[in-house]
Protein backbone atom coordinates (compact mmCIF):
# COMPACT_ATOMS: atom_id res chain seq x y z
CA UNK A 1 0.00 0.00 0.00
CA UNK A 2 2.90 2.34 0.67
CA UNK A 3 3.80 3.42 -2.83
CA UNK A 4 5.15 6.86 -3.69
CA UNK A 5 1.68 8.41 -4.08
CA UNK A 6 0.65 6.91 -0.74
CA UNK A 7 3.63 8.51 0.98
CA UNK A 8 2.50 11.87 -0.43
CA UNK A 9 -1.08 11.16 0.63
CA UNK A 10 0.16 10.25 4.12
CA UNK A 11 1.91 13.60 4.60
CA UNK A 12 -1.07 15.49 3.15
CA UNK A 13 -3.28 13.63 5.65
CA UNK A 14 -1.07 14.76 8.55
CA UNK A 15 -1.11 18.36 7.26
CA UNK A 16 -4.89 18.33 6.74
CA UNK A 17 -5.50 17.03 10.26
CA UNK A 18 -4.31 20.41 11.59
CA UNK A 19 -6.61 22.43 9.29
CA UNK A 20 -10.20 23.58 9.78
CA UNK A 21 -10.14 22.67 13.48
CA UNK A 22 -13.31 21.67 15.26
CA UNK A 23 -14.41 23.67 18.29
CA UNK A 24 -11.89 23.53 21.17
CA UNK A 25 -14.64 22.34 23.52
CA UNK A 26 -15.25 19.29 21.31
CA UNK A 27 -11.56 18.66 20.62
CA UNK A 28 -10.73 18.75 24.32
CA UNK A 29 -13.34 16.07 24.98
CA UNK A 30 -12.03 13.94 22.11
CA UNK A 31 -8.40 14.33 23.25
CA UNK A 32 -9.28 13.17 26.78
CA UNK A 33 -11.19 10.20 25.33
CA UNK A 34 -8.20 9.25 23.17
CA UNK A 35 -5.80 9.63 26.12
CA UNK A 36 -7.98 7.17 27.99
CA UNK A 37 -8.32 4.72 25.07
CA UNK A 38 -4.75 4.86 23.78
CA UNK A 39 -2.63 5.70 26.82
CA UNK A 40 -4.35 4.82 30.10
CA UNK A 41 -5.84 1.55 28.82
CA UNK A 42 -2.42 0.48 27.52
CA UNK A 43 -0.72 0.75 30.90
CA UNK A 44 -1.80 -2.69 32.26
CA UNK A 45 -0.57 -4.67 29.24
CA UNK A 46 2.63 -2.58 29.03
CA UNK A 47 3.30 -3.17 32.73
CA UNK A 48 2.77 -6.94 32.55
CA UNK A 49 4.91 -7.35 29.43
CA UNK A 50 7.66 -5.08 30.75
CA UNK A 51 7.83 -6.86 34.09
CA UNK A 52 8.34 -10.31 32.58
CA UNK A 53 10.61 -9.21 29.75
CA UNK A 54 12.78 -7.28 32.25
CA UNK A 55 12.97 -10.46 34.34
CA UNK A 56 13.91 -12.57 31.30
CA UNK A 57 16.61 -10.09 30.22
CA UNK A 58 18.27 -10.26 33.63
CA UNK A 59 18.02 -14.08 33.82
CA UNK A 60 19.56 -14.48 30.35
CA UNK A 61 22.30 -11.98 31.17
CA UNK A 62 23.06 -13.84 34.39
CA UNK A 63 23.24 -17.10 32.44
CA UNK A 64 25.89 -15.60 30.16
CA UNK A 65 27.93 -14.16 33.00
CA UNK A 66 29.00 -17.47 34.49
CA UNK A 67 32.66 -16.47 34.91
CA UNK A 68 33.55 -15.79 38.58
CA UNK A 69 35.80 -12.91 37.39
CA UNK A 70 32.78 -10.92 36.18
CA UNK A 71 30.90 -8.84 38.72
CA UNK A 72 27.22 -9.64 39.34
CA UNK A 73 26.53 -5.92 39.09
CA UNK A 74 26.95 -6.31 35.30
CA UNK A 75 23.53 -7.99 35.26
CA UNK A 76 21.90 -4.78 36.48
CA UNK A 77 24.00 -2.75 34.02
CA UNK A 78 23.05 -4.95 31.04
CA UNK A 79 19.38 -4.98 32.03
CA UNK A 80 19.30 -1.20 32.32
CA UNK A 81 21.04 -0.67 28.99
CA UNK A 82 18.84 -3.20 27.13
CA UNK A 83 15.65 -1.81 28.60
CA UNK A 84 16.39 1.90 28.15
CA UNK A 85 18.04 1.71 24.76
CA UNK A 86 15.96 -0.89 22.96
CA UNK A 87 13.29 -2.82 24.79
CA UNK A 88 11.16 0.00 26.22
CA UNK A 89 11.16 2.46 23.33
CA UNK A 90 11.38 0.15 20.30
CA UNK A 91 9.96 -3.25 21.14
CA UNK A 92 7.22 -1.85 23.32
CA UNK A 93 6.27 0.39 20.37
CA UNK A 94 6.01 -2.64 18.09
CA UNK A 95 3.74 -4.30 20.64
CA UNK A 96 1.74 -1.08 20.82
CA UNK A 97 1.47 -1.11 17.01
CA UNK A 98 -0.57 -4.26 17.54
CA UNK A 99 -2.70 -2.93 20.36
CA UNK A 100 -3.11 0.78 19.69
CA UNK A 101 -2.50 0.63 15.93
CA UNK A 102 -5.11 -2.03 15.25
CA UNK A 103 -7.60 -0.18 17.43
CA UNK A 104 -7.05 3.06 15.51
CA UNK A 105 -7.27 1.41 12.07
CA UNK A 106 -10.33 -0.65 12.86
CA UNK A 107 -12.22 2.20 14.54
CA UNK A 108 -11.56 4.67 11.71
CA UNK A 109 -11.99 1.94 9.08
CA UNK A 110 -15.39 0.97 10.48
CA UNK A 111 -16.42 4.62 10.35
CA UNK A 112 -15.36 4.69 6.68
CA UNK A 113 -17.30 1.50 5.85
CA UNK A 114 -20.46 2.67 7.62
CA UNK A 115 -20.34 6.10 5.89
CA UNK A 116 -19.77 7.95 9.18
CA UNK A 117 -16.76 9.74 7.65
CA UNK A 118 -18.89 10.73 4.64
CA UNK A 119 -21.49 12.06 7.10
CA UNK A 120 -18.83 14.28 8.72
CA UNK A 121 -17.74 15.57 5.30
CA UNK A 122 -21.31 16.33 4.26
CA UNK A 123 -21.80 18.31 7.48
CA UNK A 124 -18.79 20.44 6.52
CA UNK A 125 -16.60 19.01 9.30
CA UNK A 126 -12.95 18.18 8.57
CA UNK A 127 -12.94 14.43 9.38
CA UNK A 128 -9.14 14.33 9.63
CA UNK A 129 -9.12 17.01 12.29
CA UNK A 130 -11.98 15.34 14.11
CA UNK A 131 -10.53 11.81 13.99
CA UNK A 132 -6.74 11.99 13.57
CA UNK A 133 -5.69 15.19 15.35
CA UNK A 134 -6.92 14.06 18.84
CA UNK A 135 -5.00 10.78 18.38
CA UNK A 136 -1.78 12.64 17.55
CA UNK A 137 -2.17 14.85 20.63
CA UNK A 138 -3.08 11.89 22.87
CA UNK A 139 -0.03 9.93 21.75
CA UNK A 140 2.22 12.81 22.75
CA UNK A 141 1.69 11.31 26.21
CA UNK A 142 3.17 8.04 24.95
CA UNK A 143 6.61 8.72 26.55
CA UNK A 144 4.74 8.40 29.87
CA UNK A 145 3.88 4.78 28.95
CA UNK A 146 7.48 4.09 27.96
CA UNK A 147 8.72 5.56 31.25
CA UNK A 148 6.47 3.10 33.08
CA UNK A 149 7.80 0.29 30.85
CA UNK A 150 11.40 1.25 31.74
CA UNK A 151 10.78 1.29 35.50
CA UNK A 152 8.68 -1.88 35.56
CA UNK A 153 11.12 -3.83 33.35
CA UNK A 154 14.10 -2.92 35.55
CA UNK A 155 12.04 -3.77 38.62
CA UNK A 156 11.15 -7.13 37.01
CA UNK A 157 14.85 -7.78 36.47
CA UNK A 158 15.62 -6.82 40.06
CA UNK A 159 12.97 -9.19 41.46
CA UNK A 160 14.07 -12.06 39.21
CA UNK A 161 17.66 -11.66 40.39
CA UNK A 162 16.61 -11.38 44.03
CA UNK A 163 14.72 -14.67 43.72
CA UNK A 164 17.73 -16.21 41.94
CA UNK A 165 19.94 -15.33 44.89
CA UNK A 166 21.87 -12.41 43.36
CA UNK A 167 22.25 -9.65 45.90
CA UNK A 168 19.89 -6.74 45.32
CA UNK A 169 22.72 -4.38 46.19
CA UNK A 170 24.86 -5.68 43.32
CA UNK A 171 21.96 -5.28 40.89
CA UNK A 172 21.33 -1.69 42.03
CA UNK A 173 25.03 -0.91 41.75
CA UNK A 174 24.85 -2.21 38.19
CA UNK A 175 21.87 -0.03 37.39
CA UNK A 176 23.82 3.03 38.53
CA UNK A 177 27.07 2.01 36.85
CA UNK A 178 28.38 4.27 34.00
CA UNK A 179 25.04 5.97 33.66
CA UNK A 180 24.89 8.12 30.53
CA UNK A 181 21.99 10.64 30.69
CA UNK A 182 22.21 11.11 26.91
CA UNK A 183 20.90 7.56 26.49
CA UNK A 184 17.66 8.68 28.12
CA UNK A 185 17.49 11.64 25.71
CA UNK A 186 18.08 9.23 22.81
CA UNK A 187 15.35 6.90 24.08
CA UNK A 188 12.83 9.73 24.40
CA UNK A 189 13.64 11.18 20.97
CA UNK A 190 12.91 7.73 19.52
CA UNK A 191 9.76 7.39 21.63
CA UNK A 192 8.45 10.73 20.40
CA UNK A 193 8.98 9.71 16.76
CA UNK A 194 7.34 6.33 17.37
CA UNK A 195 4.37 8.07 18.99
CA UNK A 196 3.79 10.11 15.83
CA UNK A 197 4.13 6.93 13.72
CA UNK A 198 1.72 5.04 16.01
CA UNK A 199 -0.89 7.78 15.68
CA UNK A 200 -0.62 8.50 11.96
CA UNK A 201 0.21 5.27 10.08
CA UNK A 202 -2.78 3.30 11.47
CA UNK A 203 -5.01 6.36 10.94
CA UNK A 204 -3.88 6.50 7.31
CA UNK A 205 -4.74 2.84 6.76
CA UNK A 206 -8.14 3.24 8.39
CA UNK A 207 -9.06 6.54 6.76
CA UNK A 208 -8.22 5.58 3.18
CA UNK A 209 -9.42 1.98 3.30
CA UNK A 210 -11.94 0.80 0.74
CA UNK A 211 -14.44 -2.04 0.88
CA UNK A 212 -16.43 -3.69 3.65
CA UNK A 213 -16.04 -5.39 7.00
CA UNK A 214 -13.51 -7.92 5.69
CA UNK A 215 -11.28 -5.11 4.44
CA UNK A 216 -11.33 -3.51 7.90
CA UNK A 217 -9.59 -6.64 9.22
CA UNK A 218 -7.14 -6.62 6.32
CA UNK A 219 -6.43 -2.91 6.83
CA UNK A 220 -5.70 -3.55 10.54
CA UNK A 221 -3.22 -6.29 9.66
CA UNK A 222 -1.58 -4.16 6.98
CA UNK A 223 -1.43 -1.25 9.37
CA UNK A 224 0.38 -3.38 11.99
CA UNK A 225 2.86 -4.65 9.40
CA UNK A 226 3.69 -1.17 8.08
CA UNK A 227 3.78 0.49 11.49
CA UNK A 228 6.25 -2.17 12.71
CA UNK A 229 8.43 -1.83 9.61
CA UNK A 230 8.48 1.96 9.83
CA UNK A 231 9.31 1.83 13.56
CA UNK A 232 12.25 -0.52 12.90
CA UNK A 233 13.56 1.61 10.03
CA UNK A 234 13.19 4.86 12.00
CA UNK A 235 14.87 3.13 14.95
CA UNK A 236 17.86 2.30 12.75
CA UNK A 237 18.07 5.84 11.34
CA UNK A 238 17.79 7.56 14.73
CA UNK A 239 20.34 5.19 16.27
CA UNK A 240 22.71 5.85 13.39
CA UNK A 241 22.23 9.61 13.75
CA UNK A 242 22.26 9.87 17.54
CA UNK A 243 24.56 7.12 18.77
CA UNK A 244 27.04 6.20 16.06
Amino acid at each position, binding site marked *: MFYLSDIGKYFIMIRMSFFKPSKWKILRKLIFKEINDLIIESIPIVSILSFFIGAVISIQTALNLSSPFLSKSLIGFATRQSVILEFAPTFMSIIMAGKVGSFITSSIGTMRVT*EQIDALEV*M*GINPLNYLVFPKIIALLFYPFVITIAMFVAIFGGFLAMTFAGVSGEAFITGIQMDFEPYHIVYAYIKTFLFAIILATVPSFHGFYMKGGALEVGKASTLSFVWTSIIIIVVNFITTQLLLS
Partner: protein
Amino acid sequence: MIEVKNLIKSFDENEIVKNVSTTFVKGKTNLIIGQSGSGKTVLLKCLLGLYAPDSGEIIYDGVSNKMMNDSNKTLLRREMGMVFQGSALFDSMTVLENVQFPLTMLTEKGDDEIRQRAEIAIQRVELEKDYKKLPSELSGGMQKRVAIARAIVMNPKYLFCDEPNSGLDPKTAIIIDKLIQEITKEFNITTIINSHDMNSVMEIGEKILFLVNGEKNWEGTNKEIFKTDNQSISDFVYSSELLKKVKKYL
Protein backbone atom coordinates in the same frame (compact mmCIF):
# COMPACT_ATOMS: atom_id res chain seq x y z
CA MET B 1 -34.44 24.74 -6.00
CA ILE B 2 -31.37 23.17 -7.57
CA GLU B 3 -30.70 23.54 -11.29
CA VAL B 4 -28.22 21.24 -13.00
CA LYS B 5 -26.84 22.35 -16.37
CA ASN B 6 -24.88 20.04 -18.67
CA LEU B 7 -23.20 18.20 -15.81
CA ILE B 8 -20.39 15.81 -16.74
CA LYS B 9 -18.39 13.70 -14.28
CA SER B 10 -15.77 11.11 -15.20
CA PHE B 11 -13.47 8.81 -13.28
CA ASP B 12 -10.29 8.01 -15.17
CA GLU B 13 -11.53 7.51 -18.74
CA ASN B 14 -15.08 6.51 -17.77
CA GLU B 15 -17.77 9.15 -18.11
CA ILE B 16 -20.23 8.31 -15.34
CA VAL B 17 -22.60 11.30 -15.58
CA LYS B 18 -23.13 12.38 -19.17
CA ASN B 19 -24.32 15.91 -19.85
CA VAL B 20 -27.27 15.83 -17.44
CA SER B 21 -29.51 18.91 -17.18
CA THR B 22 -32.51 19.06 -14.87
CA THR B 23 -34.21 21.04 -12.14
CA PHE B 24 -34.97 19.78 -8.64
CA VAL B 25 -38.02 21.57 -7.35
CA LYS B 26 -38.35 23.20 -3.92
CA GLY B 27 -41.01 21.78 -1.59
CA LYS B 28 -41.26 18.57 -3.58
CA THR B 29 -39.71 15.13 -3.34
CA ASN B 30 -37.42 14.78 -6.33
CA LEU B 31 -36.34 11.23 -7.16
CA ILE B 32 -33.30 10.13 -9.12
CA ILE B 33 -33.94 6.61 -10.33
CA GLY B 34 -32.10 4.12 -12.50
CA GLN B 35 -30.41 0.76 -12.46
CA SER B 36 -27.33 0.09 -10.36
CA GLY B 37 -24.34 1.73 -12.04
CA SER B 38 -26.47 4.29 -13.86
CA GLY B 39 -24.70 7.23 -12.16
CA LYS B 40 -27.30 8.09 -9.50
CA THR B 41 -24.87 8.13 -6.57
CA VAL B 42 -22.22 10.06 -8.50
CA LEU B 43 -24.81 12.68 -9.48
CA LEU B 44 -25.97 12.90 -5.86
CA LYS B 45 -22.38 13.31 -4.64
CA CYS B 46 -21.82 16.07 -7.22
CA LEU B 47 -24.93 17.84 -5.88
CA LEU B 48 -23.60 17.42 -2.33
CA GLY B 49 -20.26 18.89 -3.36
CA LEU B 50 -18.36 15.71 -2.49
CA TYR B 51 -17.30 15.35 -6.16
CA ALA B 52 -16.33 18.31 -8.31
CA PRO B 53 -17.99 18.10 -11.76
CA ASP B 54 -15.65 17.98 -14.78
CA SER B 55 -17.89 20.46 -16.56
CA GLY B 56 -21.35 21.91 -16.26
CA GLU B 57 -22.96 23.90 -13.51
CA ILE B 58 -25.04 23.34 -10.39
CA ILE B 59 -27.13 26.32 -9.28
CA TYR B 60 -28.38 26.32 -5.68
CA ASP B 61 -31.25 28.82 -5.37
CA GLY B 62 -29.64 31.11 -7.93
CA VAL B 63 -26.02 30.70 -6.78
CA SER B 64 -23.76 28.75 -9.12
CA ASN B 65 -21.17 26.34 -7.77
CA LYS B 66 -18.70 28.02 -10.12
CA MET B 67 -19.01 31.27 -8.17
CA MET B 68 -18.30 29.62 -4.81
CA ASN B 69 -14.97 29.64 -2.99
CA ASP B 70 -14.12 27.08 -0.28
CA SER B 71 -15.78 29.01 2.55
CA ASN B 72 -18.97 29.47 0.46
CA LYS B 73 -18.96 25.72 -0.16
CA THR B 74 -18.59 25.04 3.57
CA LEU B 75 -21.52 27.36 4.29
CA LEU B 76 -23.57 25.66 1.57
CA ARG B 77 -22.84 22.26 3.15
CA ARG B 78 -24.34 23.54 6.38
CA GLU B 79 -27.59 24.13 4.50
CA MET B 80 -27.66 20.50 3.42
CA GLY B 81 -28.96 17.49 5.29
CA MET B 82 -28.11 13.97 4.23
CA VAL B 83 -29.69 10.62 5.01
CA PHE B 84 -27.25 7.87 4.11
CA GLN B 85 -28.15 4.41 2.85
CA GLY B 86 -26.82 2.79 6.04
CA SER B 87 -27.98 5.70 8.24
CA ALA B 88 -24.31 6.53 9.14
CA LEU B 89 -25.12 7.18 12.78
CA PHE B 90 -22.17 7.55 15.15
CA ASP B 91 -21.97 4.23 17.00
CA SER B 92 -20.62 5.60 20.26
CA MET B 93 -23.31 8.29 20.60
CA THR B 94 -26.90 8.01 21.82
CA VAL B 95 -29.87 9.06 19.68
CA LEU B 96 -29.90 12.48 21.33
CA GLU B 97 -26.14 12.98 20.92
CA ASN B 98 -26.33 11.96 17.26
CA VAL B 99 -29.05 14.51 16.57
CA GLN B 100 -27.29 17.20 18.62
CA PHE B 101 -23.99 16.57 16.85
CA PRO B 102 -24.32 18.99 13.88
CA LEU B 103 -25.60 21.74 16.18
CA THR B 104 -22.78 21.19 18.68
CA MET B 105 -20.12 21.11 15.98
CA LEU B 106 -21.33 23.86 13.70
CA THR B 107 -23.23 26.42 15.74
CA GLU B 108 -22.46 28.67 18.70
CA LYS B 109 -25.75 27.87 20.44
CA GLY B 110 -25.85 27.07 24.15
CA ASP B 111 -26.29 23.53 25.46
CA ASP B 112 -29.94 24.11 26.46
CA GLU B 113 -30.94 25.45 23.05
CA ILE B 114 -29.10 22.64 21.28
CA ARG B 115 -30.89 20.05 23.40
CA GLN B 116 -34.25 21.74 22.82
CA ARG B 117 -33.81 21.80 19.04
CA ALA B 118 -32.61 18.20 18.98
CA GLU B 119 -35.63 17.13 21.04
CA ILE B 120 -37.99 18.87 18.59
CA ALA B 121 -36.35 17.01 15.68
CA ILE B 122 -36.54 13.69 17.54
CA GLN B 123 -40.20 14.29 18.40
CA ARG B 124 -40.85 15.05 14.72
CA VAL B 125 -39.68 11.55 13.80
CA GLU B 126 -41.58 10.09 16.77
CA LEU B 127 -38.62 8.69 18.70
CA GLU B 128 -39.04 10.65 21.92
CA LYS B 129 -38.97 7.44 23.98
CA ASP B 130 -35.59 6.40 22.61
CA TYR B 131 -33.42 9.46 23.40
CA LYS B 132 -30.88 7.53 25.39
CA LYS B 133 -30.55 4.47 23.18
CA LEU B 134 -27.45 3.69 21.14
CA PRO B 135 -27.84 3.07 17.38
CA SER B 136 -27.08 -0.63 17.93
CA GLU B 137 -30.21 -0.86 20.10
CA LEU B 138 -32.48 0.45 17.33
CA SER B 139 -34.18 -1.29 14.41
CA GLY B 140 -33.28 -0.34 10.82
CA GLY B 141 -36.39 1.83 10.48
CA MET B 142 -35.68 3.62 13.76
CA GLN B 143 -32.08 4.25 12.70
CA LYS B 144 -33.39 5.85 9.50
CA ARG B 145 -35.66 8.07 11.59
CA VAL B 146 -32.71 9.19 13.70
CA ALA B 147 -30.77 9.89 10.49
CA ILE B 148 -33.68 12.00 9.25
CA ALA B 149 -33.84 13.87 12.57
CA ARG B 150 -30.10 14.56 12.37
CA ALA B 151 -30.48 15.73 8.77
CA ILE B 152 -33.27 18.21 9.56
CA VAL B 153 -32.01 19.53 12.90
CA MET B 154 -30.02 22.30 11.20
CA ASN B 155 -33.14 23.41 9.26
CA PRO B 156 -31.55 22.60 5.90
CA LYS B 157 -32.61 24.10 2.58
CA TYR B 158 -31.69 20.88 0.82
CA LEU B 159 -32.28 17.31 1.95
CA PHE B 160 -30.48 14.45 0.20
CA CYS B 161 -31.40 10.82 0.77
CA ASP B 162 -29.41 7.92 -0.63
CA GLU B 163 -31.65 4.85 -0.87
CA PRO B 164 -33.49 5.81 2.34
CA ASN B 165 -35.55 2.63 2.48
CA SER B 166 -33.01 0.04 1.47
CA GLY B 167 -33.00 -2.92 3.85
CA LEU B 168 -36.41 -2.03 5.27
CA ASP B 169 -39.61 -4.05 5.03
CA PRO B 170 -42.20 -2.60 2.59
CA LYS B 171 -44.43 -1.18 5.33
CA THR B 172 -41.59 0.59 7.17
CA ALA B 173 -40.20 1.75 3.81
CA ILE B 174 -43.48 3.51 3.00
CA ILE B 175 -43.58 5.09 6.49
CA ILE B 176 -40.05 6.47 5.95
CA ASP B 177 -40.97 7.71 2.44
CA LYS B 178 -44.09 9.45 3.78
CA LEU B 179 -42.10 10.99 6.63
CA ILE B 180 -39.58 12.44 4.17
CA GLN B 181 -42.41 13.79 2.01
CA GLU B 182 -44.17 15.37 5.00
CA ILE B 183 -40.94 17.00 6.19
CA THR B 184 -40.26 18.30 2.67
CA LYS B 185 -43.66 20.04 2.60
CA GLU B 186 -43.50 21.20 6.23
CA PHE B 187 -40.07 22.84 5.94
CA ASN B 188 -40.43 23.72 2.23
CA ILE B 189 -37.07 22.18 1.37
CA THR B 190 -35.64 20.79 -1.83
CA THR B 191 -35.48 17.05 -1.28
CA ILE B 192 -33.56 14.78 -3.62
CA ILE B 193 -33.88 11.03 -3.15
CA ASN B 194 -31.71 8.49 -4.82
CA SER B 195 -33.77 5.31 -5.19
CA HIS B 196 -34.56 2.26 -7.23
CA ASP B 197 -37.49 1.30 -5.08
CA MET B 198 -40.67 1.23 -7.14
CA ASN B 199 -42.90 1.82 -4.12
CA SER B 200 -41.08 5.10 -3.48
CA VAL B 201 -41.48 6.07 -7.13
CA MET B 202 -45.21 5.48 -7.00
CA GLU B 203 -45.78 6.94 -3.53
CA ILE B 204 -43.66 10.07 -3.38
CA GLY B 205 -42.22 10.65 -6.87
CA GLU B 206 -43.41 14.22 -7.40
CA LYS B 207 -40.50 14.82 -9.77
CA ILE B 208 -38.59 11.89 -11.23
CA LEU B 209 -35.31 11.89 -13.13
CA PHE B 210 -34.54 8.58 -14.82
CA LEU B 211 -30.90 7.87 -15.68
CA VAL B 212 -29.63 5.23 -18.09
CA ASN B 213 -25.85 4.77 -18.30
CA GLY B 214 -25.31 8.23 -16.85
CA GLU B 215 -27.62 10.00 -19.30
CA LYS B 216 -31.00 11.56 -18.63
CA ASN B 217 -33.47 9.27 -20.32
CA TRP B 218 -36.78 10.55 -18.98
CA GLU B 219 -38.20 12.98 -16.45
CA GLY B 220 -41.68 13.56 -15.18
CA THR B 221 -43.99 12.76 -12.27
CA ASN B 222 -45.26 9.49 -10.81
CA LYS B 223 -48.58 10.07 -12.58
CA GLU B 224 -46.90 10.61 -15.95
CA ILE B 225 -44.91 7.40 -15.58
CA PHE B 226 -48.11 5.37 -16.25
CA LYS B 227 -48.80 7.20 -19.49
CA THR B 228 -45.32 7.42 -20.94
CA ASP B 229 -44.44 5.53 -24.09
CA ASN B 230 -40.71 5.64 -23.21
CA GLN B 231 -39.71 1.98 -23.44
CA SER B 232 -36.67 2.24 -21.09
CA ILE B 233 -38.64 3.70 -18.18
CA SER B 234 -41.52 1.26 -18.76
CA ASP B 235 -39.09 -1.68 -18.74
CA PHE B 236 -37.51 -0.34 -15.54
CA VAL B 237 -40.76 0.36 -13.70
CA TYR B 238 -42.55 -2.80 -14.82
CA SER B 239 -39.56 -5.08 -14.48
CA SER B 240 -41.34 -7.73 -12.41
CA GLU B 241 -44.04 -10.07 -13.71
CA LEU B 242 -46.41 -8.89 -10.99
CA LEU B 243 -46.11 -5.26 -12.03
CA LYS B 244 -46.52 -6.19 -15.69
CA LYS B 245 -49.87 -7.81 -14.77
CA VAL B 246 -50.83 -4.74 -12.73
CA LYS B 247 -50.03 -2.53 -15.74
CA LYS B 248 -52.65 -4.37 -17.84
CA TYR B 249 -55.37 -3.24 -15.44
CA LEU B 250 -54.23 0.40 -15.32
